[in-house]
């Protein structure tokens, strides 16, 4: 198995061509994370509220338009402060007439929904910040 480090020039070229903001690869041999426009991204980020060490983020499992509420319901699936179970839906990706359900990986408390309503999101984009139960 070759090290992912050997492929960084290729990966960087793909990232530049793709329009993606970030590329992350995890494998047994290592872990690579490439971020485009890092300086801009950091300065543009809102100052994060102080958080416990275990803060986590639910990431998009694919490409689609993010929905915080089920199309039959006016109210969002989760909001700040909600306690959620592992496997509980926290958002949806709409792809045409299909809905991909985004679920909480672990029991947690919702900090905030970070994705914008109806925004097109891609694989790995941050959707919902959570504080896993300790």
């Amino acid at each position, binding site marked *: 198995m070759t090290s992912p480090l050997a492929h960084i020039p290729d990966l960087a070229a793909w990232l530049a061509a793709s329009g993606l903001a970030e590329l992350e690869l995890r494998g047994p041999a290592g872990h690579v994370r490439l971020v485009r426009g890092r300086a801009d991204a950091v300065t543009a980020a809102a100052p994060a509220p102080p958080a416990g060490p275990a803060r986590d983020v639910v990431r998009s499992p694919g490409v689609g338009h993010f929905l915080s509420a089920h199309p*039959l319901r*006016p109210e969002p699936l989760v909001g700040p402060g909600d306690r959620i179970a592992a496997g*509980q839906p926290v958002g949806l990706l*709409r792809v*045409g*007439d299909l*809905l*991909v359900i985004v679920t909480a990986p672990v029991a947690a408390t919702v900090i905030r929904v970070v994705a914008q309503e109806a925004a097109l999101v891609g694989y790995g984009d941050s959707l919902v910040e959570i504080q896993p139960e300790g």
Partner: protein
Amino acid sequence: MIRLLACGALATVQDRGRLGALRWGVGTAGAMDTLALAGGNLLVGNPDDAAGIEIQVPPFEIRFEVATTFAVTGADCALMLDGVPILPWTGARARAGAVLRLARRASPQAWGARSYLCVSGGIDVPVVLGSRATQLRGAIGGHQGRSLQAGDELPLGSPDLSPPVAGTGLVPPVVALPLAVDGLPALRVLPAAEYECYRPVSRAAFWGEPWRVTPQSDRYGFRLSGPTLTPLEPLELRSHGIVPGTIQVPHGGQPIVQMCDAQPSGGYPKIGTVIEADLWRLAQAPIGARIRFIETDWDGALAARDALDGWLSAARRALSYLRARSTA
């Protein structure tokens, strides 16, 4: 097998209906919202003729005795699988022994009146006259020809197809194929044989005014209240064949829309017929809701049916693509 732990009134096993049986004087029965049943069957990888459970009055609670894939479609309801909230119109995986509970949603605006539980393989009750649908009037089909009750055990068929990836849902057709007039759910109607026999002011009111779904509305028919429909002169007819969707006008001048448990003949004059493609919209109008009628014609009715078929075909293609990708 699934076991019913709790069951509100009038839950029944239904498929798409006992089609072709009207010639024997046997009503179609079947799901009131056949589109929701079809969507649920797609989500769990079932063929179109698989049977599910129509749930009219929550709560409803079952235990899956085997691991399987299921989906609850139709009316919105609060769904808990082993105590964890899940979403309607979504395929979900249940382990053997898992308990699914449907309850009414706290929101009074929760959409719809009937939910459908579809399970991979379908509810495998005996086929009677070509269908598994429960016909309560004749006490045939479904589970022992009756509505379900706590303690019932229902066999599941073996899945024909590998079901799509759990965690995938469909945008409900009420969102994908909306139809409303002045903010009220609307139904397209063909003028029927006696339409011209009504006074012009009644015909205008039929299209122009809202109609309320009265409490005397069920799987047999929906009695509506609104402006009085008055014929030009008294009408007397012999009994003749009628179909689900037929809008009859009894002497009081308040219309009745025949639904899927309607008897196959009747003698009241007919002012119109709700097109087949819009019957699911009426099926999901709860008691007390107001609806509107839209005049259409033969071509309009066929176009509406094509639109439903198109929605189902697109959903089927998208789910097949996901299934192929997940098994590749």
